[in-house]
């Protein structure tokens, strides 16, 4: 690609180097096309739900679990249970999803501190009026507060018992 030319002067020989721009621009164009085609514009992730026996998340023996009921898009009922006995309960209300997530996070932290950080399991019971986006937002909030073992209760048609 590079042109190497010797000067024609008899007294002084000049070695001239330069790059031909045309293939270079071609190469750049190919690079840009490759980047545009292969670039990942949408970053996907996963939230893991562990279903046990079709309806409930696996519960640690003798440990704590949290029952989270999504009553409606603005209300979430949370219960801290130990060996199926309710130890704490709280209903949180938020006019917006962000407010609701903030309130859920505070209660989750309180329950975690009460359980001396043994609480890692939550079982969510959705309501017909609550959409999937809300369910995922609440699950996301719980996961951010180290409650990572999540299960969703299946109630209704289609579940073979």
């Amino acid at each position, binding site marked *: 690609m590079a*042109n190497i*030319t010797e*000067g024609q002067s008899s007294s002084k020989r*000049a*070695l*001239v*180097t*330069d*790059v031909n*721009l045309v293939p*270079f621009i071609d190469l750049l164009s190919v*690079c840009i096309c490759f*980047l545009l085609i292969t*670039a*990942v514009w*949408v*970053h*996907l*992730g*996963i*939230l*893991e*739900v*562990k*279903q*046990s*026996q*079709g*309806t409930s998340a696996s519960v640690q023996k003798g440990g704590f679990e949290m029952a989270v009921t*999504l009553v409606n898009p603005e209300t979430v009922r949370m219960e801290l249970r130990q060996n199926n006995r309710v130890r704490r309960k709280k209903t949180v209300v938020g006019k917006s999803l962000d407010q609701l997530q903030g309130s859920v996070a505070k209660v989750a932290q309180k329950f975690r501190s009460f359980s001396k950080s043994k609480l890692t399991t939550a079982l969510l019971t*959705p*309501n*017909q*009026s*609550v*959409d*999937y*986006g*809300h*369910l*995922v*937002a609440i*699950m*996301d909030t719980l*996961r*951010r507060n180290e409650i990572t073992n999540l299960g*969703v*209760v*299946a*109630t*209704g*048609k*289609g*579940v*073979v018992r």
Partner: protein
Amino acid sequence: MIGADILKPGSFQHHLVASDHKKAHTKRTLLVSLSLTAMVDMFAVLVIFLLQSFSSSPEVIITKGIELPEAVSGSEMKDAPFLSLAKGQLFLNQELLGSVGDVLKKPNKLMVRLKTARQKWQKDHPEKNFPGEIHFQADRSIPSTTIGNIMGVVSQAHYYSIQLAVLSRDSQ
């Protein structure tokens, strides 16, 4: 040994200009010079960008008509069959299974397909235990009870680890 003055930028231009003067009657020469430093900088930036955007996670197709929910705590995707729910229709690996209502009324078709996928996985990985993982894509506006019921059916086909596909977003 090449003298330093030979490698000075612009020597090629001088050569061309001299040549042009010699052939005064001929066409004019277009002179373009390129800074190698800038070119190397640009290549470095390109390489860094490619390395940053490189992802080893498996490629997953988002079914048309699905607006995925967003989450901050989303983790890396794994290779697993994927079930998607779009416009009231249920798909397993892009293959239509029927409407959600029909599948929930008669889940046997879905159960059979999931069993086939599980057997295929076990045949392909005879030395491993079946992890029971499945991806699930659904529109954020779908009632959550529908999702719960589908999860119930899926878990009965020994898929206990359901990976809900979400759009990863940064925490604020």
